[in-house]
Structure formats: C-alpha cells, structure tokens
C-alpha cells in the first residue's frame, strides 16, 4: 500500500467532494456548535451559555445528565445486541447461498428487498405485524404462550425493535459476506479438499480470514446505523413503554423539537457524534493495524 506516488495535486480531484461535504456537513455542524453554547428563549432569542449544557450533560446527577446516560446505555445495549445477532446470522446465510445458477439472482433480490422499504413503511408494517390480535408475529408469540405486549411490556418492546432491525438489516451483512465469499478463488477450496480439511477448518482457516475486510465494513456500517436508529422505534413503540426504548436519537428529537431546547439538544448531539466517531476510530485503527500485520 505504500508504493503509491505522492501527488498533492490529487487534492484537486477531491475538491468537488469537499465542496459538497462542506456545504452539507460543516456548515450545519457549525450551526449545532453555535446552538450548543447558547440558551434559547422562544424562537429567536439566544443567550450566551458557555459550557453549561455540556457540564450538565456529562454529570449524571442532573436531570439532563441522567436522561442522557440512560439513553446512552440503552443505545449501546441495542447496538451490541443487534450486531451480535446480525453478523453471525448474516455470515451463516451467506454460506448457505448457492454460488451459481438461477437461484442466486432471485435469492439476492429477495434478500435485498427489506432494505429498500422506506423506514416509516417498515415501522408501519411492524406496527400491524407485531399486534397480537391481527398480526402474525404477535399472534405467533402469544400463541406460544408468551406474555407479549409491545405497548405495555418493556421486554416485548425491546424484542420487537431488535427483531425489526434484524429483519431489516441482516440482508446487508448477507450481501457483504456473500461478496467476500465470492472473491475466494476456487483453488483454495480444492486445496482444502485434497488436504481433507473439515468443514469447520475450511470456514475458520479460509473463509473467515478472507471475510475480515467485508466484515469490518459490515460491522462499522451496522454500528453506525443501529446507534442512530430513529424511525422504527418512533413508529412502533414511540420510545416507550416509559422510556425503555428511548434511544439517543429519539431523546434528541424530543428535546430539540418537542421542547424546543435547541441548546441542550445541540450539546447532546455533539457529544453523541463524538462518541460514534471515537468508537469507529478505535475500531478502524485496530482493524487496519491487524490488516497490515496480516499482509506482512
């Protein structure tokens, strides 16, 4: 990777991207920074507030701090639950996909379908589908004798949101893993067969190492997306019962639009953004380091 020619004129080719991203990311971010150090009264009255919001936010003994800490814990728990289910499941399904033939195209199209449904429609489908009286999912769970009630019982609400996310986004992991598997030359499998390698050995010694790159992408993308989940829980549970499914994004919108507390919401979103970036940076660096060691 280090044999690339140094050419600082390459910046010119990156320039169009920079202009778009400056417009759609840096300017709004500066607005958020601006809000975060002010207090708002009414629509257009702003007062200098310094770092008070940040201090309140990071101190769990205040009301705002406790709320933020709660939402943060819930969001992390949600992200890890989803990743722990989706990544293994996605790999398993990708291994089950045929490598050639007419079934490949059809399976891929069907698998990708849930990802192409607008998020509010996803919420709407599950609003009905999870109901015990008229929805298949709710009716099946109740039929099995489980106590299941999305609007009353926090466990049910959690299960529902996780199931929705697994249904909605495991396909992305499947597509990525399948792409990674397809990139393994047939010769590797032939060599393994000659050596009499077991199925597990083929998986752990050939397939998994080759999948590492795409799995990093899948994990990063899925972490970012689950960490900022908004539409589905809002539509299906509304963040409840109580605040059991109130994730960070939901709390943020409640504060920003519900209470019109722009300062608090802005400070919250900056901290929130920094957390995501920090987690991804650690992950990204760790994986690229591993990669370099693997190549050497």
């Amino acid at each position, binding site marked *: 990777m280090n044999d690339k*020619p*140094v*050419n*600082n*004129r*390459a*910046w010119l*080719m*990156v320039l169009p*991207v920079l202009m*778009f*991203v400056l417009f*759609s*990311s840096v*300017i*709004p971010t500066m*607005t*958020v920074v601006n809000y975060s150090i002010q207090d708002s009264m009414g629509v257009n009255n702003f007062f200098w507030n310094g770092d008070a919001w940040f201090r309140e936010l990071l101190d769990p003994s205040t009301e705002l701090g406790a709320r933020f800490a709660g939402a943060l814990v819930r969001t992390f728990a949600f992200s890890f639950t989803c990743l722990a289910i989706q990544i293994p499941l996605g790999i398993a*399904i990708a291994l089950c996909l045929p*490598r050639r033939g007419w079934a*490949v195209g059809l*399976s891929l199209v069907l*698998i*990708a*379908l*849930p990802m*192409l*449904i*607008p*998020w*509010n*429609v996803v919420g*709407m*489908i599950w609003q009905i*589908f999870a109901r015990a*009286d008229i*929805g298949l999912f709710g*009716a099946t769970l109740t039929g099995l004798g489980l106590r299941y009630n999305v609007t009353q019982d926090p466990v049910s609400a959690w299960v529902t949101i996780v199931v929705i996310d697994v*249904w909605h986004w495991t*396909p992305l992991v499947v597509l*990525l893993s399948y*792409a*990674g598997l397809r990139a393994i030359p047939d010769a590797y499998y032939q060599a393994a067969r000659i050596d009499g390698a077991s199925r597990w050995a083929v998986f752990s010694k050939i397939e998994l190492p080759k999948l590492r*790159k*795409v799995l990093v*992408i899948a994990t*990063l*993308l899925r972490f*970012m997306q689950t960490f900022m989940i908004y539409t589905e829980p809002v539509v299906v549970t509304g963040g409840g019962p109580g605040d059991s499914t109130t994730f960070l*994004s*939901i709390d*943020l919108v409640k504060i*920003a*639009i519900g209470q019109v507390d722009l300062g608090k919401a802005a400070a919250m*979103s900056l901290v*929130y953004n920094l957390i*995501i970036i920090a987690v*991804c940076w650690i992950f*990204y660096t760790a*994986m690229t380091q591993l990669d370099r060691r693997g190549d050497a």
Partner: protein
Amino acid sequence: MRQGIAPRLVLILYLVLLMLPIYWLISMSLRTNADIMSGLVLWPRDPTLVKYRAIFNDPSWLHAFGVSLAYVAINTVISVTVALPAAYAFNRFSFIGDKHLFFWLLTNLMAPAAVYVMPFFNLYYAVGLFDTVWAIALAHCLFNVPLAVWILEGFVGGVPREIDETAAIDGYSFPRFFIRIFLPLIANGIGVTAFFCFMFSWVEQLMATTLTSSNALPFAAVMTRSYSASGMDWSLLAAAGVLTMIPGAIVIWFVRKHIAKGFALGRV
C-alpha cells in the same frame, strides 16, 4: 460446490421469514380496513384493488411519487459524479492528509440525521431551497457522497495501475483517459454505487419530510399526512407501502449480478 440439503433448507426458511412481513403488507393492501381490524387472516378473502385505484386517481400521491423519484435521481447523479475523481485520487495517489480526510469523510456517514434536521432547515431556508427537491437531494449528499467514495475506491483499486501508465504512454490526456478508458472499466462499480445511493436516499424519511412543506412533499410525507386525516387508513397506507417497494425492486433487479462484487474489493 459443497451444497448439501441443509444449507438449502436454511436458506429457504430464512427467505420465507424474510418475506412474511412483506407478504403481510401486500395482503393488507388488498383488504378493506374493517377486514384488517376484524382479526388474524392469513389469506385475503375478497382481494380488492380499490386502494391502488384511489392512489392512482389522486394527483397528490402521484406528484409525491414523482418528487421522491426526482430527488433520489438527482442525489444519485451528484453523488456518483463527484465521488468518481475523489475515489480515483484516494486509490492512486498519496497526498497530504489523505488518510485523515478519508476517515473524516466516513464520519459523515455516522452523523445522525436527527442532529442535522434543525440546522438543515435553517440552512436551506436561508439559501431559498426549502421545499424543493434540490434541498432533499443536497441534504442526502451528507451521507451518500462519502458512501459513494468509499465503494468506488474499492472498485478503482480493482483496476491494475498498468492501465493508467499504458494510456499515458499512448498519449491520452488525463480527462480523456478517465472518461474513455477508465469509466467503462469500472462500470459495474458505478452501477453498484448508484444502487446504494439510490437505496439510502429512497429510504431516508426524517430529512426528506422536514425539508419540505407543500410543493415538494415526498411520498413518505403524504403517507404521514393520511395517517392523521382519516384515522388510520391501514389498507391505503399498505397499498402506498407496496408501491414504495417497486422502484427499489426494479433497480436491484438490474444490478443483481454485480451487487455481490460490490464491497468485495473494498478497503478499510
């Protein structure tokens, strides 16, 4: 390859589970509201296309569908166009700050839409783009441009560098080489990238509904409006939901052969 019976059964089971909620949606769209609410029905008793007819006869639905397709198309074209040279630069050259710039671009994928809703509202209001398809198309560039750079960079890396050098020796100027030789070589990559841009722009709702008020209402906003107006018209919403899946299904059918190669070459 080693395809036994078990993997096939697992795959079929997974596909069935995956399709069940979608089947439920289609089935709801063919039933009347009273029938939906009356109880669990696995198969619609008297399927009716009334709701689809209602949607196709209502200009506000059709207009909204056009708006959604318009901003998704604009966004996809912009994202792919600006990302192409950048992806080439990131893959072929090293320049001051390249790695940090690349990661910084990725951080925009992590920017929660909820955070940007208020600033975007102010920004697009100030520049006079509020309530136009351009506002949504540009707002979606926030995550689609970095995503496009990321995917395309992998595809650029799949083209051997010797091709660039040979073209230079043959006397091709850089722009001519890029357009005449290089772009056809990564046509698959462009297709896959366009698919992902299309997908993420098509499914995003929060920004799309916040940045519009009446002229450029996207499909999703018309759906939320019909929520409150007539109680819960589940069957109409379901029909609209089914229609929102069609453009995506068409697009994925075209790229199905290449989608599997999508990120395989990608770097992290």
